[in-house]
């Protein structure tokens, strides 16, 4: 006999896995669009530190001269990205799942402990099954970022009709920069997410597909799941 613990509801698993290819497509098509006016860079004291993006990067990914293609994908997939995201938010709040997601009073401290643990500075046994403090903060941030991408995106897409949003973003050019910065944020999130999922192991990973985790018979008081 095996004891399984329900972790991710079916709806959330669908939202997660629909979002993955859709967001990937949005980032890729966004890159095709960005190339046509690739003005962002990081400078420190007038010295160029990093240019978004180096020519070699564009070449390797076959980005140049695909603006029209990028726009046509971007403005088709935006619907799925937006609808899937809104349904996720609605579901999370109506089903009560927000209780596991939103950061609480302990989250900040716990996130710090998780960070120290992950950097191998101090051990931290996680007491919760679903999300630890670091996860609550990260996954809530990503949700807010999604809303941010919608707002900044609409502000660039229809700056006359959504003039209020464009104004809210600080103008057209700021909105474009913010939209870009959020995308860089997704990429960084993705990298950390992958490393953490790999570290957490198979039982944790398969739960975003099956919905449950199998409880280890010996450790029935202490499940060390994360991510």
């Amino acid at each position, binding site marked *: 006999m*095996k*004891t399984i613990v329900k972790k991710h509801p079916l709806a959330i698993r669908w939202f997660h*896995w629909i979002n993955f290819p859709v967001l990937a497509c949005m980032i890729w098509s966004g890159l095709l*669009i960005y190339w046509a006016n690739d003005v962002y860079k990081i400078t420190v004291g007038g010295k160029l530190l990093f240019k978004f993006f180096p020519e070699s990067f564009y070449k390797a990914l076959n980005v140049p001269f695909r603006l029209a293609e990028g726009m046509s994908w971007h403005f088709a997939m935006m619907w799925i990205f937006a609808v899937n995201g809104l349904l996720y938010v609605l579901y999370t709040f109506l089903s009560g799942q927000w209780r596991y997601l939103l950061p609480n009073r302990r989250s900040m401290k716990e996130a710090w402990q998780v960070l120290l643990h992950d950097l191998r500075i101090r051990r931290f046994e996680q007491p919760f099954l679903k999300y630890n403090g670091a996860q609550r903060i990260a996954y809530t941030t990503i949700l807010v970022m999604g809303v941010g991408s919608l707002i900044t995106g609409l502000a660039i897409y229809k700056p006359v*009709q959504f003039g209020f949003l464009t104004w809210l973003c600080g103008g057209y050019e700021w909105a474009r920069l913010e939209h870009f910065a959020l995308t860089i944020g997704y990429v960084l999130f993705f990298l950390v997410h992958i490393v953490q999922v790999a570290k957490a192991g198979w039982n944790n990973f398969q739960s975003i597909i099956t919905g*449950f985790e199998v409880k280890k018979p010996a450790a029935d008081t202490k499940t060390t799941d994360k991510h």
Partner: protein
Amino acid sequence: MEETTFTKRQVLRKSAISFAIFILVGFMVYFGYQWVKRQPKIAGAPRPLRESLNFNEQVSSRLFDSSRLVKEYPVSAAEKKVRFNGSDGLRDSVNSGTWRLRVVRSAGDTLQISLSELKALPKKEIVFDFKCIEGWSQVTHWGGVPMKTFIDHYRLGPESQLKYMGLQTPDKGYYVGIDMPSALHPQTLLCYEMNGRALPLREGFPVRLIIPVKYGIKHLKRIGTMFFSNEKPPDFWAERGYDYYAGH
């Protein structure tokens, strides 16, 4: 969290079903993507993507108020060095004395309007954030006759009941189609001045379109012919994979 007990077999079965669906849907997404890319192209974009661009156009024209005004700036905010992009349709020489704006009212009925006749109509100036589809924008200063004023003056009311306005350069090297509500937008100009002076050659001398509710690709330089149609007039960039509407 909710705990349940199952036999090993049952757990395996539940996992297998979930993974089977996961892999199946994954393949469907992958092949769906490949399918879209293989579809015949309509004006440079695979059919499903072209249809989705047209769908977005429908949504925009139904939901939005096409008379909403673009934000205007003081003249002092206007850029002196106006960014230049694209010379399609401008390769022939042009003479302001012999140039005429040809307005096709119907087959065999074409108005020929000179620059001085246009300049005699009420003038409007606008300073706005000109947006290129490439992603850059620039606050620039233009002057000319509002399209609406022009249409009223030349009694083109019946023609302007049609769905689209088509514009071409004299050599037909560049051409755009504009939905009529955008063409008649109060800030749309038949423009003959930039920064208070005659348009430079490369900016479309003698007369160009300035249509602040659209991306730069629609601001046709050096207008030769204007016509009206219920069908979408040919559009240079929309034939090359871009959105036909290209509006804000």
